[in-house]
């Protein structure tokens, strides 16, 4: 809700950051991001990198699920495609990491389109099952095509380097992953300022009306699968290069559910929501573990029940959001902004 702010040129009214408050917030955010790695310890850097990868994956999933309304349980599988494709290209063809990553993303987009074909006929729960089968099929191929993927054995990926610098060191990787997150953010935000993004949302809100407006449902649903899978593949490819080890266990259906939780909690159909949800869901287990450690002396039982507690809290958080704030953290953030913008006259 932005009221009381007027622009005299359409350019200004259509800009991404329209108010001073927005611009100031952006500057603070950028400074925080740039200075963070110089102060953070290694553990925090690892977490920041994990969050960065999750942000890219969540943006990807949100394009498909949140914006286009095509539910997907194939996230883990598509990340696996990106990770294995990137890892194998770097390993066997000696490609530079960025080239193998780019090709892996394009390949994942293609696989996404392939598994997106059922969406032309199926909706809702049925589509969820169809994309779940994508997840199962991809992991089956990964674990059984031993000659190429190594099957159950881990795939060891050479360290990514650039200008002679090893990029998989936490400090160096921070710049890689967050630059890519920034690019993903800008491209996605722009996408939804144009006919492509509007067509996606139109399909989500009212597909028959969309087709009568001239949107080719066939083409645009598959396009959404392609763009979404590109970024999901990116998250996978970055995981491969960051960890240097690719195993199928990292891409199970749990991952699909985790990412769905991210975008539901963060906010469906919102890039900011993807950030909030990815951060929240990546840091929640850490918080719980720390809480367990801190209270271990007072409540020794915490140590043993903590793993179960974690799963429980995960589920509980999702349910609470669905009940009390279905629009997610993004909505809460908006409400807070509105509150302070009108403060102290907020009535």
């Amino acid at each position, binding site marked *: 809700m932005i009221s009381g702010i007027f622009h005299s040129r359409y350019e200004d009214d259509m800009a991404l950051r329209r108010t001073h408050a927005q611009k100031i917030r952006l500057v603070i955010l950028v400074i925080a991001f740039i200075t963070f790695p110089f102060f953070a310890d290694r553990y925090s850097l690892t977490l920041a990198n994990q969050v960065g990868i999750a942000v890219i994956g969540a943006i990807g999933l949100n394009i498909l699920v949140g914006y286009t309304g095509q539910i997907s349980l194939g996230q883990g599988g598509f990340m696996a495609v990106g990770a294995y494709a990137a890892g194998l290209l770097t390993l066997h063809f000696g490609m530079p990491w960025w080239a193998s990553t780019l090709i892996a993303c394009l390949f994942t987009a293609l696989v996404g389109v392939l598994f997106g074909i059922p969406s032309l006929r199926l909706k809702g729960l049925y589509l969820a099952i169809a994309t779940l089968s994508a997840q199962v099929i991809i992991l089956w191929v990964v674990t059984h095509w031993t000659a190429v993927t190594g099957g159950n054995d881990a795939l060891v990926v050479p360290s990514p380097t650039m200008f002679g610098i090893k990029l998989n060191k936490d400090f160096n990787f921070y710049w890689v992953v967050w630059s890519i997150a920034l690019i993903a953010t800008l491209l996605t935000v722009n996408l939804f300022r*144009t006919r*492509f993004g509007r067509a996606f949302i139109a399909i989500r809100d009212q597909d*028959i009306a969309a087709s*009568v407006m001239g949107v080719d449902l066939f083409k645009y649903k598959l396009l959404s699968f392609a763009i979404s899978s590109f970024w999901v593949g990116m998250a996978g490819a970055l995981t491969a290069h960051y960890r240097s080890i690719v195993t199928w266990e990292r891409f199970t259906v749990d991952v699909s559910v985790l990412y769905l939780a991210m975008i539901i909690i963060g906010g469906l159909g919102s890039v900011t929501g993807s950030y909030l949800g990815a951060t929240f869901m990546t840091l929640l287990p850490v918080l719980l573990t720390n809480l367990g450690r801190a209270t271990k002396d007072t409540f020794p039982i915490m140590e043993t029940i903590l793993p179960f507690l974690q799963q429980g809290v995960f589920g509980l958080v999702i349910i609470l959001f669905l009940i009390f704030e279905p629009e997610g953290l993004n909505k809460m953030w908006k409400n807070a902004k509105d509150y302070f913008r009108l403060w102290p006259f907020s009535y």
Partner: protein
Amino acid sequence: MLRGFTSELNSSRLKAGETQLKVDNIQLNFGGLTALLDVSLEVRQSEILAIIGPNGAGKTSLLNCISGLYHPQKGKISFFKSDEKGGATEQEVTRMRPHQIAQLGIARSFQNIELFRHMTVLDNLLSGCHIHMKSGLLASMVYLGAAQREQIKFRQFVEDIIDLLEIEAHRSKTVGSLSYGLQKRVEMGRALAMRPSILLLDEPMAGMNSEEKEDMARFILDINEEHGVTTILIEHDMGVVMDISDRIVVLNFGQKIGEGTPQEVHNNPAVVQAYLGENRVHLPNQLPEN
């Protein structure tokens, strides 16, 4: 009052009065039910053609056939557009898919508002411009130069429609939060954003109070008179129909039982018996279903 449009609202180049759409003996069945039987009609450039008939007569089904949502089992629907030489070329649309028919500029609104609920009014109208936007995917994602200029150009165009429909105060609101009458207006705006060659309006005034109805009738007339947009209008309010339409087609149980000027239809015994006879000259306003 009307601001100069930066681009043409009407994308058809035919001369007024030329045949623009021809529905030829179409039949539409749903299982055992015949929704349309041997229906034929012609729509001419720049006229307002009203389609009337009791509930379930097949009016909406006819529009759905024209916009490609239903495909009639028999018969043919053709669309005419002007060629370079000033003549008219015929194109059969019977088997075309909805988005292909939309490319021809056949725009419509729905009986039960089908807006993009979570978008703002502006975005709804801009999504109506879909078929006219040309920027490619990569250019759009980078959003520099031509892609940005295109968005600004269409923003201007859409602002003209906003002025025309007098919804300035609501442009940045989510349509789901607007009143029923305003949503109907926005839906017509979205159809106008397509620069319609033919505008199909399915009960644009249903569920409105008389003031809102008057506004809507005025908009439809403005669009028709100032811009020459051909309009097919389904409406139950006989007062409005008699007032604003050039010609009327009457459907009953899926068949055409009458056609002509308002006066002719009013005096047609078959029509009077089937439709107007039973004191239904002024049907009660239909309540919206949602």
